[in-house]
């Protein structure tokens, strides 16, 4: 399992197709705006960093798993690779 982080919605738009079925996708920083731009609720691989949502005044999406920094650390440890997609 690999952890793919996206730090902007542009990065997600460009590289969102790269994670495979068993990977996890984490939206951080401005990447959390991807949740407002498209319906991501069907994709069970998606996680969103709660703190970055709050900083941008966004409510936590009900059907998407929101995680804390501690969860992020745990996912990092559990993942074979961490790939950071930036824009």
């Amino acid at each position, binding site marked *: 399992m*690999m952890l793919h982080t996206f730090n902007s919605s542009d990065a997600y738009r*460009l590289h969102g197709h*790269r994670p495979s079925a068993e990977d996890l996708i984490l939206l951080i920083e401005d990447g959390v705006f991807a949740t407002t731009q498209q319906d991501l609720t069907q994709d069970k691989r998606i996680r969103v960093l709660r703190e970055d949502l709050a900083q941008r005044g966004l409510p936590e999406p009900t059907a998407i798993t929101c995680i804390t920094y501690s969860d992020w650390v745990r996912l990092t440890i559990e993942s074979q*690779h*961490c*790939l950071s997609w*930036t824009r």
Partner: protein
Amino acid sequence: MTQLLFILSHPPGSSIYAQEAFDAALAGSAFSNIAILFVGAGCLQLIEPKLAVEAHQRKDFQRGFRALPDYDVHDVYGCEDSFKQFGLHNQTLVIQPTLLTRVDISAHLNAAQRVLCF
């Protein structure tokens, strides 16, 4: 076996990412077996620069790609989908990477010991 896989996903010119990634890859090649993978807009780094250095005011690092074999870097890959997306099949390229499908890319990522994303 690939110990370090460098993923290059940024276009040249707009940021320092592309140049720094290449420098990092060269440094990595000094002590481990590395591979380089161009994906997305990163593939645009491969277009042969057509202007003199004075015109774009930055280091002309892309010509350095030709020196990769001298650094014992022989595994240079590109994303086939991105090549199609950016129309690179008809461009003059600095070097021609081995093109990989999405499935091949996943296999390379799984097989690499460490992956570094730039």
